[in-house]
């Protein structure tokens, strides 16, 4: 592996020890990237004000400074194509600024002003709040059923914890947030004591010193912020079905709490297992092969051992979403409903449920098999080789390189990508199989399904009563499928799932 890449680039990436600064010096780059990360996130939202951290961060980012209105800033940076914005997750908020070095010193007063003296104008706040309210009230339910089911799974996993509500909050929480709350939250949750500065590019030591001094002038937090709470342990398989109008498919997410994160060395072994089972958007993973490729059921099927941001849009994982409260999940992209299949194929006119129950059985059965039987040496070697090369693609741009270094910092590591490669190199198939047995199981899971109203009741009954769920292929497909697949289908349709609870929720009742 060492010989694979040529080694002509002289760069260094390190985490400074003195101040909380992550540096990535890139002498040849004309781009300067600055990231200011605060360890707060939606878990630090005060009770009853769910969404306040996101609203605060966005009011800073989309508002003005003491010296400039938001419109003046847009005017100023327009010809430079400078970019900035904030991403808020459960445990962090990260402001990212990118500018060509030609304009760094002109841009810097804006960076400094936004972070130290945000304007918090009433009209900026009302615009941000209105958009946030709109998202939690309407957009999340009506834009992407698969993203919706991911959010409702988290709601289920973390119910009655400070991790439950969406980063954007919920209907009542956002409604409760005032501009005074935003000002107070800025003082209480965005300080120098929970801040990490990140910088990448060909900056000068003097500039970095100035940045450190200025950002250091943020106040030290007076009180500690809430600690991220852990996911609930389900009792058996607990299902929540969200019924909505005119859903063409059933979008499924399932998961359970996971005790380890990138902080643990064993995570590397679990990465190999997960890559084999359900690497994100890769046709060579087991779930994809079984459900999409062999059975034509949907667009893709993947598994995760940590949060994956905007999976529908990203082929590679994005940095900036580090989490200490972790869970395993399986994402089954929308499968057909009975209503849809009946409309498409006359021969399926008598079916009562679509493909969601079968797909779930198939996925859980595959997971059971790999936990029980372990990976073969051959699969292990191939997957390990793949991951060690593939992970080098995670951080192709300076912004992503810096992002991954800052995430590493969150997890108490210096450079997780680098360290993972070393850990993967020494991981054995026995380590992988032991990690699966230690951390994975399928007996206790939460399942969230967003589906058409017509599918909800029959699907709930099928799951609750553990009824057989034969695959309903169209004649045109059934006629060409191999006997092996049809035989396996017979086993899958009766695969027992110990469902202990099934609840149907109206879409309008989610995220209240």
């Amino acid at each position, binding site marked *: 592996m060492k010989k694979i890449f040529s080694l002509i680039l002289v760069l260094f990436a390190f985490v400074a020890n003195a101040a909380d600064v992550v540096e990535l010096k890139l002498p040849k780059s004309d781009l300067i990237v600055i990231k200011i990360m605060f360890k707060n996130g939606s878990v630090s939202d005060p009770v009853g004000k769910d969404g306040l951290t996101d609203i605060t961060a966005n009011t800073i980012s989309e508002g003005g400074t003491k010296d400039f209105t938001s419109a003046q800033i847009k005017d100023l940076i327009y010809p430079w194509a400078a970019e900035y914005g904030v991403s808020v997750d459960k445990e962090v908020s990260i402001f990212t600024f990118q500018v060509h070095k030609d304009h760094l010193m002109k841009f810097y007063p804006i960076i400094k002003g936004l972070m130290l003296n945000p304007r918090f104008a009433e009209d900026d706040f009302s615009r941000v709040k209105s958009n946030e309210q709109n998202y939690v009230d309407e957009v999340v339910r009506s834009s992407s059923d698969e993203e919706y089911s991911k959010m409702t799974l988290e709601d289920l996993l973390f119910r009655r914890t400070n991790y439950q509500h969406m980063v954007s909050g919920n209907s009542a929480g956002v409604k409760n947030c005032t501009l005074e709350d935003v000002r107070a939250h800025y003082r209480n949750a965005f300080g120098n004591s929970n801040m990490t500065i990140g910088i990448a590019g060909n900056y000068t030591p003097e500039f970095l010193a100035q940045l450190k001094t200025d950002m250091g002038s943020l106040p030290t937090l007076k009180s500690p912020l809430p600690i991220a709470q852990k996911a609930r342990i389900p009792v058996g398989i607990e299902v929540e079905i969200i019924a909505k109008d005119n859903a063409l498919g059933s979008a499924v997410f399932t998961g359970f709490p996971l005790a380890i994160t990138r902080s643990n060395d064993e995570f590397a072994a679990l990465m190999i297992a997960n890559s084999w089972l359900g690497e994100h958007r890769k046709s060579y993973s087991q779930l994809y092969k079984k459900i999409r490729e062999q059975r*034509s059921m949907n667009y893709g099927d993947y598994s995760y051992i940590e949060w994956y941001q905007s999976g529908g849009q990203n082929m590679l994982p994005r940095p900036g979403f580090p989490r200490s409260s972790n869970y395993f999940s399986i994402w089954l992209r929308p499968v057909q409903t009975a209503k849809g299949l009946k409309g498409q194929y006359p021969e399926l006119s008598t079916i009562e449920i679509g493909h969601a129950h079968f797909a779930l059985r198939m996925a859980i059965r595959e997971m059971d098999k790999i936990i029980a039987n372990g990976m073969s040496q051959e699969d292990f070697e191939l997957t390990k080789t793949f991951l060690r090369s593939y992970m080098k693609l995670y951080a192709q741009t300076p912004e992503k390189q810096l992002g991954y270094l800052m995430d590493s910092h969150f997890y108490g590591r210096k450079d997780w990508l680098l360290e993972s490669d070393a850990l993967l190199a020494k991981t054995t198939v026995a380590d992988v199989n032991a990690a699966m047995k230690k951390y994975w199981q399928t007996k206790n899971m939460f399942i969230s399904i967003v589906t058409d109203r017509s599918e909800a009741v029959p699907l709930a009954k099928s799951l609750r009563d553990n009824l057989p769920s034969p695959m309903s292929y169209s004649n045109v497909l059934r006629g060409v499928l191999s006997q092996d697949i049809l035989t396996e289908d017979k086993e899958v349709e009766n695969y027992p799932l110990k469902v202990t609870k099934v609840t149907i929720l109206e879409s309008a009742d989610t995220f209240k």
Partner: protein
Amino acid sequence: MKKMICLLAIMLTFGVGMMNAQQSKGNILPYPIYQHKLPNGLNVVTVPYDSPGLAAFYVTMRVGSRDEVEAGKTGFAHFFEHMMFRGTEKYPKEKYSDALKATGASANANTSLDRTLYHMTGNAAMLDKMFELESDRFMNLKYSEQDFKTEAGAVKGEYTKNSASPYEQLDEKMNDVAFSKHTYQHTTMGFFKDVVDMPNQYVYSQEFFKRFYKPEYATILVVGDVKPEAINALAEKYFGMWTKGDFISTIQVEPTQTETKYTHVQVPNFPPLVSLNFKAPAFKSNDNEMPALDLLNSILFSEKSDLYNKLVVKEQKARSIGGGATNSRDPYLSQISASLVDAKDMQYVKDQIITAIEKAKTTPADATILADAKSRLRYSFAMGMDSPTNIAEAISSYIWVTGDPESINNAYVMYDNITAQDIMNVAKKYYINTGLTIATISGDASCPIK
């Protein structure tokens, strides 16, 4: 072990070369583009870039939903892209998957109006294997009827997941209304009835492969830690025997639109949307209309524009507003959309957009604003050229519209030379009522505005 960690640290840090945007008089792309045409017509493009150990390998096929000329075959170019992952005699599906996995590359494909793009970014030392895998499937694709019918279900699954979005629903309806003859009438995904019927089109799929998967439709582009001589040698070795085809799609010309058209999606409890879709020119290497339209859209609808400041920041009637034209081979659309706070303001917002457009037809753009818009384009481009993948994406976007990678540099020369008069000219020529399709989303039963 320590030595190995140091080594890996160096391997992980790449992608730092970037242009100095001050060099605005030279090519926008600060890296030479090497082109080499094989006797079979396949163009091989290499762009060396300082990304140690890393290369992006793109095959741009100039076939997309534009080429779906037969009734009942909408969505087929995209479906065929799926079939390209179903193996060959030498590399049947399972073997192909394992071989691809062993490269450790990020590999995928996507389809649009005018092209199908196959891409792999990965270890530059694995390029020989990547070329072998790609050439094999481009020349020798072979799949069973079972694989074909099974893959059709995955495409239906893709339609199913997309259909949850009201924006996707509106896009499908809007194209159907805006065009009456040209194949831009349907989206790349295709009409649902055609998607459901795809399993029955096995024979047609073989015809599709024969027509379009030929060297004259393809351009190979490699960006990264590579030398053109080595890439040319790989192309000759693996693609040299690819036989030339002779098929040319006959695509109907869209008749001139004569009146404003309307379409609507009724969705209660969703942010109302008004979208103004004007017929726009095709992108041509030597024609400055599209660059002028891009600058016009930036001046009128960017976040620094007067309209944005009025509707989004001050009055807060719109949540967002934006406008842009698509670079396409045939005349397509320039689209201006605003997401609204309240549907009752839809007519007002539409009127405000039209007022801004009318003003742009008769008032020359302020010299500073025009210079700022040009500066923004250059710096935006420069800042985005920070990885082999991003550079390959940018160059390929020009390859599929013109066939010539150098048109990326030409385009920015044209941007530099656009005058205020050019901008008024395109506003007057294209932003007209008889070229307009108004598409809306709201809880109303039909389009609530005129």
